[in-house]
């Protein structure tokens, strides 16, 4: 339980900061997007509690705005993966036969594939091909969420199928079926609740994985394009001058560390319950 609380606390702080980012900008009296060339890599001060970045922008404000992007990518990916994965898992367990074979072979196939190289191929595909505008932060985010979901649903689907199978095999389910309870009600009242625990564990881990994957894609130049800040692109941007201005790299790194650790702790906590 303490792990769950610690994890929730970490994530709560980050999410609260992300939501408060505009307020902080107002309070400190500057706009995070405006470069100030006379103030590059400034040391921490009252106006800039964490100092400034390569264009003289306030690091703390950027970090909190980056939290919105990074957490949004992480949570959206995890939710999409959870949704698709749960649906696929239940469908496989409930229908069985050909549908099950199809879904599970697809899952096995995806699991056997080299994820990162394929992420690279997918990330480099022209967004215009799938109808997204090129070069906009939103379409970068959508692109990353889509490709991470493509790989993310598999883990959830396997867990969901296993859990659903064990529920469907129980005696009281067979009894309910014999009594003429509809399949829809059966799935809603008995199968779904049993899936809550394993799926929420997998979702928490998927958030962590998506945040890390976003930072890796940023390192490879395939992440979210500036000027929109994300933890990944802040970290990738700061590495060039890491010897002269190490703090510009340390803070986004710590933010990723905190977010991923928070998710992992939540997952552990949920699992232990």
């Amino acid at each position, binding site marked *: 339980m303490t*792990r769950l609380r610690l994890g929730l606390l970490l994530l709560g702080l980050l999410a609260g900061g992300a939501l408060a980012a505009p307020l902080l900008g107002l309070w400190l009296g500057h706009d995070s997007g405006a470069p100030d060339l006379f103030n590059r890599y400034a040391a921490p001060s009252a106006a800039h509690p964490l100092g400034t970045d390569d264009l003289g922008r306030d690091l703390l404000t950027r970090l909190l705005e980056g939290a919105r992007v990074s957490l949004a990518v992480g949570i959206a990916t995890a939710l999409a993966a959870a949704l698709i994965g749960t649906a696929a898992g239940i469908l496989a367990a409930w229908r069985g036969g050909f549908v099950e074979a199809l879904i599970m*072979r697809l899952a*096995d*196939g995806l*699991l*056997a*594939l*080299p994820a*990162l*190289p*394929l992420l*690279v*191929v*997918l990330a*480099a*595909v*022209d967004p*215009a*091909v799938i109808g997204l505008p090129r070069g906009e932060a939103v379409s970068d985010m959508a692109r990353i969420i889509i490709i991470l979901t493509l790989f993310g649903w598999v883990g959830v689907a396997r867990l969901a199928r296993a859990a659903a199978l064990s529920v469907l095999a129980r005696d009281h389910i067979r009894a309910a079926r014999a009594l003429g309870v509809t399949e829809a009600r059966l799935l809603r009242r008995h199968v779904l609740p049993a899936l809550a625990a394993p799926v929420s564990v997998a979702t928490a881990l998927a958030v*962590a994985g998506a945040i*890390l994957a976003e*930072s*890796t894609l940023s*390192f*490879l130049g395939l992440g979210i394009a500036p000027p929109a800040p994300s933890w*990944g692109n802040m*970290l990738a941007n700061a*590495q060039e001058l*890491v*010897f002269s201005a*190490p703090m510009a*790299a340390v803070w986004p*790194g710590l933010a*990723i*560390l*905190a*977010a*991923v*650790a928070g998710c*992992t*702790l939540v997952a*552990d906590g949920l699992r232990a319950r």
Partner: protein
Amino acid sequence: MAGAALILRRLAQIAITLAILSFAAYMLIGLMPGDPIDLALIGDPRLTAGDAARLRALHGLDQPLLARYAAWAASVLRGEFGYSRLFAVPVADVLWPALRSSLALLGGALAIAATGGVALGVLAAARPRSAGFVDAIAVIGQAMPSFWLGILLIILFAVTLGWLPAGGSAEDGGSALRFLVLPVATLAIANVAAYARHTAAAMTATLTEPWIRTARAKGASRTRVLWRHAFPNAAVPILTLAALDAGALVSGAVVTETLFARPGMGKLIFDAIMGNDYNLALVALLLVALVTMLATLAADLAQRALDPRLA
């Protein structure tokens, strides 16, 4: 008997997956905007549009994508993997050195991660008071972006302390080991968490089984109970994890390889994809997928051998 049929069926599945993957990857690389000649145009300001059209026709890039895939697939089925467009040498000539480098890097890292992770996991299960410490290591190791960790290690051990090289590989028969320490450490730290967690979970579960208590009651020593009785039973999930990691042995680690300037499979695949080097990218991708699937198959068979209930 059932075993042989199973193996055959799985091998057939692997072949089908590879065929689908090759098609999908070829099409996806084709969907990337621009072709190799466009890339050359960026690199050489003297190239004119006329030169581009001439080179496109010469390399067959004016053919439709499906026709090019068909031609590629036909030559691969004949056993000809072709030349790398980027390096102008047969694909195998670029693949082998990269593969050797990645095997050394990831082999070292995963071996350390697996032994370290198993040791930590067993420790956490055997002495519950140390579980918090093991947890902290696992959580932090897993949560650090690998290039961030890599840069921190370089700053500390190569630049500040000067103990180890900042990257590159040995020349003139120098000790290759020194060059491996930092990149192996970077990857091992990131991978140790998974092994520690799985081992801890499996061992904790096993140690509550009644027959363990029986073994203890019979007077088996603590160490003996831990390693001879409990561990073999906990080994199944660890084996599965190791099998999944086997793919990483040949797919390399692009971030670590870039940061430590060690050309390996990760960097090679990345460059091949970004450089529209179809022959190289596809052969490398298929090799990685093949190794991963064979390893999974091997792990499944080993599991059956270890755990008769699955057979």
